[in-house]
Structures are given as structure tokens and as C-alpha cells.
């Protein structure tokens, strides 16, 4: 019996040890891959050393005093309560230390803010809850796509084992060339988001209605992962940023592929679609853009995110349905999708919503109708 218990405890301890040994206890910043990020890394280390010295001195004094100046060891209290010299010294010394810290910090700060003369300018738009990237200037101009979390829901809900890059993986990563100065313009569509890639040492809030900028120049090829850093509602924790830094040749190749894809995807807005085609396409759009709130079942998460299954709008007048999807509903989380999705996508998703779950309207919305409603 005792033996069994011993073996069990031993086994548990061994398991605990194995767990501890295998765990990734990262204690510092991620490895920097830009000049700014490595300057930040060095600043942090410098400060840590200074802090460590101050810590040792200050608490050395305190613990010595606690050890030596106790009543229980018979120490008698002295009654001094002022010493101008000492007080001036301990005001001036911290001040000098601060100046020593401010100097390198100022240099890094000024470099950090210098967004002039970029090789490539990309606009990053925060949406609830994904990122949109528009290549505005430089090689790849005109490329635009959305980038959303690609971790499947069943991993999040613990029904499947979690993948290697759980929550830090997207369907379409941002691709940039190595060694080029990339300026990122940030803005947002709904609420404030924040564009953060730790390995680059950049974090820039994306503010709806305003454009802010930041920059990076990655020195090493690779895949770098970050997340939205500003609370932006329900799925704030589920809008990662993935940046692939590739060689100049690979980048050129990638741009060419993107252009081809865009050309192939360009649809004739006046094409008449069959209801079946629209529903099939709409299901995909729904999964990417609507399911996070309204749920794959169409039941929503009332009252913040109403059900579409059986809803007045999805089973009522077509035009009201087009209007809410295009223009959103102010004061709620319902975004104006007119800015994010093409006429075809909107037509498809509306058709899908009117014919999915218990909704059996049997009608279809054509891209041309959406185009007309935009005016």
C-alpha cells in the first residue's frame, strides 16, 4: 500500500518535472529582427542592470537595518530626523541616473518616429475582428486582401488538439521583402485596434477615421507573429497579425501571383448568378465575416448579436437586408460591410442568409442590386 503510494507520488513528481522541463519559460522579449527592436531590447537590458544595482543597494540597506536595528537585539533608537546633505544627495543622484537613461531612449524614440522615405507603404485597417492590408505604394501597389484568424473553432473549444501556432495563424499573411523600409499606415473601420509585431518593435494604434503611421525594416527572412493589442470587443483575442518576410525575388513572385489572383477573381458585376451559386459562395463569406457574431448556426448570441435564423430582416424585405449589410447599424457591433466586401460577396451572403437554417425565402439577390443600393 505504502509502496504503491510512493510509486504514485514518484510518478506524479516525475510527470511534473517533465512538464516543467519541457515548458517554454520565455523570460525576455522575442528575438529582435529590426534595428529599432534590438535598440529597445538593449534599452530594456540596460535599464534592468541599473534597476538591479539600485535594488541591491536600497534593499541591502533595508534588510541590514531590519537585521541590526531591532529592539529584540537591544538596539536603542536614535532620534535624528533630518539631514539636508543626505536629502540633497538622494534627490540629485536619481536625477542624474534618469538623465543617463533618457539619452539613449531619446535617440531610439527619434529613430522610431522617422517614417520618411519608405520603399513600400502598406495600409493596415483594423476590423472587428480581422485585418485588411492595402499595398499603397511601392512594389505590389494595388494588392489588397483581408487577413483573419485561421485557427479552427474546434481547437479553441478544446474539441481538437491545438496546433503549433494556435491563435497566431492567419489565412492570408502580410508579405514584405527583407531589408526594405516598410511604412505601415494604420486606421480602423469600427473601434480602435492596435497593430503589433513584437519582433519588429512596433505597436501602433489603428484609429477609426484617422491615419497613423509606423515603420520597420526587417533584417531577417522568416515568419513573425503578433496580435491586436487594443481591446476591441468580443474577439479581441482572435485577430492575430502574421508577417512573412521574404527575399526580393520571392516577393516579386508573390506580387505577380496576387495580381493574377485578383484578375481572376474580378467578377462582372452585371453577371446574373443562379441562387445555388450564390448560396454556395455566400456560405463561405458567411463563415469568414459573419459567423463570429451571428454564429455558424445563425442563432447569434442574443441580445448583443441577434439571431439571423427567423429574424425579421433576413425573412423580410430584400432592400432592408441589403441596407443593413452594406451600411451596418450604428450604435451596435454590426459593421458596414460595404467597405470590406465586394458586391458579389454581399449579394451571395445575403442570398445565403435568406435561404439557410430555417429561413426559406427562396429569393436571390444579384450583385447588380447591391451595386445599385450603394448609391
Amino acid at each position, binding site marked *: 500500500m505504502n509502496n504503491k503510494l510512493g510509486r504514485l507520488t514518484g510518478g506524479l513528481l516525475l510527470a511534473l518535472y517533465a512538464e*516543467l522541463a519541457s515548458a*517554454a519559460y*520565455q*523570460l525576455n*522579449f522575442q528575438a529582435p529582427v529590426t534595428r529599432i527592436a534590438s535598440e529597445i531590447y538593449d*534599452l530594456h537590458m540596460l*535599464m534592468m542592470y541599473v*534597476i538591479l544595482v*539600485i535594488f541591491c543597494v*536600497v534593499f541591502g540597506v*533595508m534588510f541590514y*537595518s*531590519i537585521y541590526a*536595528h*531591532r*529592539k529584540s537585539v537591544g*538596539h536603542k*533608537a536614535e532620534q535624528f*530626523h*533630518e539631514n539636508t546633505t*543626505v536629502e540633497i544627495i*538622494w*534627490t540629485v543622484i*536619481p536625477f542624474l541616473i*534618469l538623465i543617463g*537613461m533618457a539619452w539613449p*531612449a*531619446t535617440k*531610439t*524614440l527619434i529613430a522610431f*518616429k522617422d517614417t520618411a522615405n519608405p520603399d513600400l507603404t502598406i495600409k493596415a485597417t483594423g476590423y472587428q475582428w480581422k485585418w485588411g492590408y492595402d499595398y499603397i505604394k511601392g512594389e505590389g501597389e494595388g494588392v489588397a486582401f483581408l487577413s483573419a484568424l485561421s485557427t479552427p473553432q474546434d481547437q*479553441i473549444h*478544446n474539441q481538437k488538439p*491545438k496546433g*503549433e501556432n*494556435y*491563435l497566431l495563424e492567419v489565412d492570408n499573411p502580410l508579405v514584405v521583402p527583407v531589408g526594405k523600409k516598410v511604412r505601415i499606415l494604420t486606421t480602423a473601420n*469600427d473601434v*480602435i485596434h492596435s497593430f503589433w509585431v513584437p519582433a519588429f*518593435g512596433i*505597436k*501602433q*494604434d489603428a*484609429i477609426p*477615421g*484617422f491615419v497613423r*503611421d509606423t515603420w520597420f525594416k526587417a533584417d531577417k527572412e522568416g515568419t513573425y507573429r*503578433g*496580435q491586436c*493589442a*487594443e*481591446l476591441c*470587443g*468580443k474577439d*479581441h*483575442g*482572435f485577430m492575430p497579425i502574421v508577417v512573412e518576410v521574404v527575399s526580393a525575388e520571392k516577393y516579386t513572385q508573390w506580387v505577380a501571383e496576387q495580381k493574377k489572383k485578383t484578375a481572376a477573381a474580378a467578377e462582372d458585376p452585371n453577371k446574373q448568378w443562379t441562387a445555388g451559386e450564390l448560396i454556395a459562395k455566400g456560405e463561405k463569406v458567411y463563415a469568414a465575416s459573419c459567423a463570429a457574431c451571428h454564429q455558424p448556426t445563425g442563432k447569434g448570441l442574443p*441580445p*448583443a448579436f441577434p439571431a439571423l435564423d427567423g429574424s425579421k430582416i433576413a425573412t423580410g424585405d430584400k432592400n432592408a437586408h441589403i441596407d443593413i449589410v452594406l451600411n451596418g447599424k450604428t*450604435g451596435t457591433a454590426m459593421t458596414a460591410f460595404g467597405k470590406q466586401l465586394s458586391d458579389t460577396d454581399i449579394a451571395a451572403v445575403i442570398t445565403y442568409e435568406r435561404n439557410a437554417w430555417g429561413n426559406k425565402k427562396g429569393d436571390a439577390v444579384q450583385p447588380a442590386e447591391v451595386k445599385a443600393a450603394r448609391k
Partner: protein
Amino acid sequence: MSAVIDTHGHADHDGHGYQPSGLMRWVTTTNHKDIGTMYLWFSFTMLLLGGVLALTLRLELFRPGIQIVNPEFFNQLTTMHGLIMVFGAIMPAFVGFANWQIPMMIGAPDMAFARMNNWSFWLLPVAASLLVISFFVPGGAPAAGWTIYAPLSTQMGPGMDLGIFALHIMGASSIMGSINIVTTILNMRAPGMTLMKMPMFVWTWLITAYLLIAVMPVLAGAITMVLADRHFGTSFFNAAGGGDPVMFQHIFWFFGHPEVYIMILPAFGIISQVIPTFARKPLFGYASMVYATSSIAILSFIVWAHHMFTVGMPTAGLLFFMYATMLIAVPTGVKVFNWLATMWKGSMTFETPMLFAVGFIFVFTMGGFTGLMLAIMPVDVQLQDTYYVVAHFHYVLVAGSLYAIFAGTYFWIPKWTGRMYDETLGEWHFWLSLVFFNITFFPMHFLGLAGMPRRIPDYASQFTEFNQIATVGAFGFGLSQLLFLYIVLKVSVFAKGEKAPAKPWEGADTLEWTHLPSPAPYHSFHEAPEVK
């Protein structure tokens, strides 16, 4: 606390005879001691409530994946934990201390505006109820973080309106309380007690009260604009209508940064009473303490944008706010050095109040170090909105403010109840709190450095281990506070434990110890004491 009732009969000689009993006593009371007691119990209740919310968060974060709360509710929990702890637990606790201690420490019979004092307190349960009710309205409680940044806060359901009204009411309560405190301190000091002879706790509260009067209206303005944007079609924070979302942050943090000091200055005051008492030595550098506290208060008005280093400000703005923020390290350092110099060559004993005070200096200073780190704008860019910040402000608010509240409670509870608390249990409470606090919050520094954002319900797998350690620590810390509840209940409500002498602490020298018996009589200092 109930021991006060016993002394009521014979302490009351001069026609204040009528006094309802039972519940009505507490509803109608204008006595600073009763009101102080109510503030303290209210804040402890809120502490437990906010603590339960925090433990729910920690449970969800025990491992990656969504386990017990969905992301929407998770955001409500983080928001309500913050609002309840800041406005429900920490601030009212210090007002409770002010009510009990300021009149006794300056030799005044009561607060200046006794009826308004009652009103300031009774607004709080109303506000707290609004906050709790918000969980049950459609859409649930506010979920935009305790900072309620627009335009996220304009998206919320009616729970946000309840939250805004609650903040309005708590703000009104704070302003009235502050006016009361300022008036009491400036007009009702015993003859001979000049400003520069006041106990340090009174000084810190005087400065805090001015800060409150200055910034609570600013908060009220910010949230009223959110309310107008939500319901009346204004566009203060809506770019489409010509507004600016970032303006909300400027206004909020113009309130928010002084607010941080509102929550720590009275704590400095308590520590400055406790350390000299148990070192049996006068406070070192009294005058420089007063000046340091005032400088911190003044600086607090010009550093607000360091909470917004990542919104995108011009270089000159960033430099100004970085330098101003770094400057705060100087007066804060002076305070720590003064406490150490007070301990130096003293004759120290380590009863529970002293343990918490020394623990305060040790752990609060670590929060100060991380604060310095965050002041450096380029480093802050990496750490803004990560767990590093969560670690930082819990080091200064839990190990800072809350430890000081514990130190003060153990220090003054013999005077309040006439009973000595259980020293052994008190020391246990200290050590458990200290150890579990660090187990909970120290690993968060590493999480933040490695890149874990705050306010997320689920995280990437590499953050698992430190989150598990933090969750275990959080439960240990939470449960340790039940020990504190037991210790306080024993001496107050159940009136058990050794009787306390008038001056149980050898080194104590302020008026409440030297001129009043324990427990302090219901009405004290009808005749002002003479201060030499």
C-alpha cells in the same frame, strides 16, 4: 464596529442623546466613526466581489482554449473587476480611514459636514447596485475595459449606461467626501497644530482630496460625452461626425493619472504613520515628505499621455511626456529613502502593521521600477497593453494600496474596537499574502515581455505555464483574504480578543493614541486638545 455602541452611553454627556438603534442607526448616522466603519465594510465587500470576478478570469486563463466563460462575458469580467476594485474597494477604503482617523488625529470632534458625510457614503451602495444590476440587463455589463475607451463603449448595450451612471454617482460621492476632508483639515485642527505639525496621513489626504476635486469632474465630463454620443446623436468621439476617438483617451487619462495617485498617496500616509511607530523614531525628513507628496500630485497632471504612447503622437509630445514621467521617480524615490532612513538606527519590532509596511516598501518599489521601465517610450511600445502592464499596476495597487490598507487596519483596529487582533494570525495573513501575491503577479512580467496582450480570454500555447502559476497564486491570494475577514470579524463584530490599552504601540505619538482611550469614545474631542 459594534464595540463603539457600548461606549456610546457614557461618552455622551451633552445633549446628543437621541440615537436610533438597529439598522436606522447606520442609515441616519452622522458620526464620523460610524460612517468610517461603513466605508470600510463596504469596500471590503467590494474587494471580495471584485476578487471573485478576478478568480473567474484566472480560472478561464488556467489553460489555452475557451473553458468556462465566453469571450464576451470575459470582457465584462475584466471591466467590472477593474471598476469595482478602483471605485468600490480601494478608494472607499481610504475614505473610510480618513473618516475614522482625520478627526481623531487633528483633535476635531467630527467631520466638518456631518450630514453630507452620511450622504457621500450612502451614494456608494446605490452606485454599486447599478454596477451589479448591469450584469443582468440585455447585453450584460460594460465590456470595454475599466477605461471605457470610445468608440468601443458607444457600441455596448444598456449595461454601459448603468456603468456610466454608477461612475457619476461615485464621482459625486468622492467630490463631497473630498470637500468634507479639506474643510475639516483646514478649519478644525486643534489649537497649536499648524499645517507642518499635522500627522503625515492627514497631509497625504489633504493633497489627495484636492486631486479628487480637480479630476472627478473631468471623468464625469468624459463619460457624459460618451453618454451623449450613445443616445443623443453627438459625435464627440466619432470621426464620421467630426469627433476624435483619441480625445476620449486624453480626457480620460487627464483624470486617470491623478486617479492613480489618489489611490496611492493615502497609502503613503499610512506607511508614514506605521514605520516611525514601530521603529520608535520620528519620521525622517517630514518636510521633504510633504514637498515630495505635493510634487507627485502636481506632476500627476502633466504625465497623462504616457498611457497613450502608442496612439501616435508627434515626437515632441512623446519626448515631453517621457521626460515628465521619468521625473516622478525623483519624489517617489525620496519617499522610499525617507522611510528607510526612518528605519535606520531605530529600535524596530515587527508586529503585523510593520510587516505590511515593510512588505509595502519592498513590493511597491518593484512596481516603481517597472513604472520607470514603462516611462521609457520605446520600451513602453513593446509593453503597452501587455501583461507587463498588468503586473506593474497590480504591484502598485495591490502590493501598494491594498497592503497599506491592511497595515492601517491592523495598526488602528485596537483603537477602533478596543480589542487586540490575533497577532499570530495577522502574521500568517501577511506572509500568505506576500508569497501568493508574488506567485500571481511576478510571472506576468515574463508573459508581457514574451508578448501576451492583456484582456484576452485565450492565448497562444507558449504562455501556458506562467498563466497556470499565476492562477494558482491568485487562488492562494484570494483565500488568504478570508483569514483577514476572520481576524477583523473576531475583534469587531464578535468583540473577542484581548482588551487593548489606550496606546498599544510603544512608539505611537499621534493624538488618537495619546489622548483617547481604546476603543475611542463615540464622541471624541469635544474639547480640543492642546498641541505643543
